[in-house]
C-alpha cells in the first residue's frame, strides 16, 4: 500500500509498506477519489522509510548476524516485521495533473492525503501518456518491463535534440538509430562525423536495406567542389571566419573574384595567379597564405569531372537518405572549412526550398562549429529547416542557450556532477531528476526528456540496430579489439547461515 507522506512544492514523498517494486523513473498515479482528480508523479529517488529506533535495531542485529539458529515464529509475524523494516519512501516529482481523465499542466492542485490512493502506472499506461501509439513513430527500445516504446516522429520533426552521456554509454548508437529511423520514414540527414563512427552505416555488405540510402563522403576525396559552385559569399565566409582573413584583404578577394567571374576564369589556378599579382605586399602575403590553406583542404578542384555539388548528393536522398561527411582524418582547420562550406550551401538551398528540411547530426560540434553558428543553427537555420541533433560527451561544450532551446535531451549515464549540472540547464527538466536518474543509468539506457516523450521523462533501453554501427576504433593489442562480454562474478550470494523460521502451516 502506498500513501502520501509529504508534499513539498513539486516534490511528493510516498511511503510504501509493504514495499512495492517502484524504481527510479517509474510513474505513480495519486488518485484523489474525492476530487475525481489526480497527480502523475515520477519516482526520482528510492530510500528506506525512517522507522523509529531502526539504528539501534540494526546495531543490535550486527551482534547476532552470524549466529546459527532457528526462529520459532509460530504466528508468522516475521513477514509483517520485514515489511516494516523494508518500507520504502519514493521521492517523486509531479509531472502532470489529471482532471476528469484529461492531462493538465496546472500543477497547483494538491490531493487530499486521506482520500488519495497511490498506484504504480503500468508500462502500457505510461506509453499512453507519451502518445507512443501513433502511426508515424520510431521504435526506440524497451521500458524496464520489456514493453516496446516508440516515439512519435512529430517529437523529432522540427526539433532541436541533444544526445549526451559519458563515453561508451551508447550515445552514438542512439544517434545512428534515430538517423536510420528517419531515413526509413524518408527523412534527409546530414552527419558531421568527426570520429568516423557513422561510415559503417554505409557498408553495403550489411543486410540492412537502408545502407543503400547512406552516402559516405570524404571531403577532398570523393567530395570536391568548384569555386564557381562555392560562390563568393561562401568563399568569403570561409576566408574570413575560418581563415581569419582581414577585412582589407577580403575586399581585395572580392575584387579579384569579380574580375575572374566576369572573364569566366574562376578557377583555383587563376585565383592563385591573381592573388600573386596583388601589388600590396602585405595583402598579397595574406591572400596567398589563405589560398594555400584552401589548396591544402583539397576540397576545391578545377576538374569538373571530380567536382560535385550538395544538390547532386541531396538529389540522391529525395526519398530519404543520409550524407555522412567523414571528418575523421582531416585537420581541425580543414574540418572547419568543410563544415562552413556545407552549412552556407545548405542555408541557401533551404532558402530556395531545394529541400524542405534536413536533420543535421553533429558529433562533438564544438570541435568544428564556430561560435556564431551555434546561435544561427538554433534560431535562423532551424526556421529554415535545419533540425540539429548534437551528440557529445562533454555537455558543458554546449552553450546554456542551446540547452534552453532544446526540445529533447537523450541523456545517458553521467557520474560527474558538473556534467549533470550542465544538462540540467535545459528548461524541460530539473536538476533532481537529472542527477538522481542519470547517475544510475546502465549502458545503453537513456533518460529521454522533452517533446519526444510528451514531457514525461522516461528511461528507455535503446534497441539494437540492424546495421554496422560500431566505429572503427584502433587498438594496439589484438585482444583488446575483441568486445568484452560481462562475466558472471563468482560472488557467494547465499546468506550467512541464520537458520530457518518456523511458521505455522
Amino acid at each position: 500500500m502506498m500513501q502520501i507522506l509529504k508534499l513539498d512544492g513539486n516534490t511528493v514523498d510516498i511511503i510504501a509498506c509493504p514495499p512495492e517494486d517502484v524504481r527510479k523513473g517509474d510513474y505513480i498515479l495519486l488518485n484523489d477519489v474525492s476530487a475525481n482528480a489526480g497527480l502523475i508523479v515520477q519516482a526520482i529517488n528510492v530510500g528506506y522509510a525512517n522507522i523509529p529506533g531502526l539504528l539501534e535495531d540494526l546495531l543490535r542485529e550486527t551482534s547476532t548476524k552470524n549466529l546459527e539458529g532457528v526462529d520459532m515464529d509460530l504466528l508468522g509475524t516475521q513477514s509483517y516485521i520485514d515489511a516494516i523494516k523494508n518500507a520504502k519512501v519514493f521521492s517523486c516529482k509531479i509531472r502532470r495533473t489529471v482532471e476528469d481523465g484529461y492531462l493538465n499542466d496546472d500543477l497547483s492542485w494538491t490531493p487530499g492525503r486521506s482520500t488519495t490512493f497511490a498506484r504504480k502506472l503500468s508500462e502500457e499506461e505510461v506509453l499512453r501518456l507519451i502518445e507512443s501509439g501513433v502511426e508515424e513513430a520510431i521504435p526506440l527500445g524497451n521500458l524496464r518491463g520489456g514493453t516496446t516504446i516508440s516515439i512519435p516522429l512529430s517529437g523529432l520533426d522540427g526539433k532541436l535534440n541533444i544526445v549526451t552521456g559519458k563515453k561508451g554509454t551508447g550515445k552514438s548508437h542512439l544517434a545512428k538509430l534515430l538517423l536510420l529511423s528517419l531515413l526509413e520514414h524518408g527523412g534527409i540527414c546530414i552527419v558531421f562525423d568527426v570520429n568516423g563512427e557513422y561510415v559503417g552505416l554505409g557498408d553495403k555488405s550489411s543486410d540492412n536495406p537502408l545502407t543503400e540510402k547512406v552516402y559516405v563522403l570524404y571531403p577532398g576525396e570523393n567530395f570536391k567542389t568548384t569555386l564557381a559552385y562555392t560562390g563568393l559569399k561562401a568563399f568569403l565566409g570561409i576566408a574570413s571566419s575560418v581563415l581569419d582573413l582581414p577585412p582589407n584583404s577580403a575586399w581585395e578577394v572580392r575584387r579579384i573574384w569579380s574580375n575572374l567571374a566576369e572573364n569566366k576564369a574562376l578557377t583555383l589556378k587563376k585565383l592563385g595567379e591573381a592573388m600573386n599579382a596583388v601589388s600590396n605586399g602585405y595583402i598579397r602575403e595574406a591572400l596567398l597564405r589563405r589560398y594555400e590553406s584552401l589548396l591544402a583542404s583539397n576540397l576545391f578542384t578545377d576538374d569538373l569531372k571530380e567536382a560535385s555539388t550538395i544538390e547532386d548528393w541531396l538529389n540522391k536522398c529525395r526519398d530519404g537518405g543520409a550524407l555522412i561527411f567523414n571528418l575523421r582524418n582531416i585537420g581541425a582547420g580543414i574540418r572547419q572549412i568543410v563544415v562552413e562550406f556545407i552549412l552556407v550551401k545548405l542555408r541557401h538551398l533551404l532558402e530556395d526550398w531545394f529541400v524542405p528540411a534536413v536533420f543535421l547530426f553533429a558529433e562533438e560540434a564544438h570541435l568544428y562549429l564556430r561560435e556564431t553558428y551555434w546561435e544561427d543553427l538554433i534560431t535562423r537555420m532551424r526556421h529554415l529547416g535545419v533540425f540539429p541533433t548534437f551528440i557529445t560527451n562533454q555537455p558543458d561544450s554546449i552553450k546554456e542557450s542551446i540547452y534552453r532551446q532544446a526540445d529533447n535531451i537523450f541523456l545517458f549515464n553521467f557520474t560527474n556532477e558538473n556534467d549533470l549540472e550542465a544538462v540540467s540547464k535545459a528548461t524541460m527538466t530539473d536538476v533532481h531528476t537529472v542527477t538522481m536518474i542519470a547517475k544510475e543509468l546502465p549502458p545503453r539506457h537513456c533518460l529521454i526528456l522533452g517533446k519526444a516523450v510528451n514531457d514525461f521523462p522516461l528511461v528507455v533501453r535503446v534497441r539494437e540496430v540492424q546495421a554496422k554501427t560500431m566505429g572503427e576504433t584502433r587498438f594496439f593489442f589484438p585482444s583488446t579489439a575483441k568486445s568484452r562480454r560481462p562475466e558472471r562474478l563468482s560472488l557467494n550470494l547465499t546468506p550467512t547461515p541464520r537458520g530457518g523460521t518456523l511458521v505455522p502451516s
Partner: protein
Amino acid sequence: MELVDLTHMVPMDFFDLGRSSLEEMVSAITRTSIDGTEWSDEAGDVLSLRLGSREAPLIRLSAAEQSVPVIGIDTTNIELGQTERGVLCAVRGTVVKAEEGGYEYIRHGPFIFHITNGNKQVLYENLMESFLGLREAGAAPPLEKMTERIRSVLERWLQRQVSLAHRGALILWDGSLGAPRTSRSLSLMSGMLREARERENTVLAFSKKTTLTLWNGGRDLVDNHLAPSLLDIDEDARANYAGQLCFLGHVYAAKLWPGSFTLRLDIDRSMPVSEAAKEVGKLLVSDCLRENYPETLRLAHILSKFSAAEIIGIHRFIGKTYGLEVSQYPDIRGAILGPLEGNSQSRGVFVH
C-alpha cells in the same frame, strides 16, 4: 553443533492461548482469589546491597581445563497497546548455546496476547498449569502485571526445558535464585534446581538488577588484579533481606574479568563453595565474557528484545489477521529506549 534437540520445545499452549486470546475464544470466567499470595519473579532480583567494611571472603578462580556447553536463557515482554477492553502484549524468549567456541540459538515467539479482565483468569490458570504444573494458580494479577507474568512463565518453562534436555552443562539464568518466602515460585524454582542437579547441570543466575555498592558508595567490589574471583556476599545478602526472601542460591559478587564492575551471581545453595568456584571456572573457558557478562546471556537478551520495527510489524499483523484495533499505542521510542533514557517506567511498557 546444533540446538535441534531443543526445537521440540514448542510451547504450543503459549501459541494457542495467545491466539485464542486474540480471537476472543477464551471464555470469560472470573474467579475470586484463592489466596493473596503474589508471585513475583523479580522480587529476589531487585536488591540493593550495601556491604559493610567487613571483608567478605574472596574466592580466586582458575579457568577449567576443559570447556562445557553453556546455555543462556532470556525472555522479554512488551505492551503493544491498549484496546477498548484490555491490553495487547507480546512475549519472546531465546535460548543461546555456546559450545566449542560457536553459538547457536532458538528463539520462541513472539507470542501475542490480548488480555482483558474477562479472559485474564482463564489465561493465567491455563499458563500456570500447562507450563509450570501449578494446578491452583490463584488469582490472576492485575491487568497491568499480566504481561510480566506471562513472560515469567515462558522464562521458567524454557529454563526447565533446557535443564531437562542437557547434561553436564552450565545453564545461565537471567535473574537471581531468590524469591519471597510465601511465593509459589519458591517451590517451582527449587524443583527446577533439583532437576538440573540430577542431570549434572549447574545453574548460574546472573542478576543485572541487583545493585552492589560499598558503604562508601563504591561499586567496584573487587580489585582488578584479583580478577577472576568471587566475593562471598551471601551473609550480607541474607542479613539484609532476612525474613522476606528465601535464597535458594548462594550469593556471590562476581568479577570474572578485570576492568568491569562486579555482578551478583547466585549459585545453587546445595553446591559447596569450592564446587561452585570450579563451575564458574568452567564458564571462564566455555563462554566469552563482555563487561563481566556471559555472551550467551547477552545474545539471548539481544535476540529476545523487541525492536521498534518489530512492534510496528506486530501491530500490522494483529490488525490484518485479527482485525483488532489498538485504541492507544505505546510510545515506541519510550518502549525501546526507555531504560537508556532513564525512563524505564514508561507507562504500560515492561522491559525485562
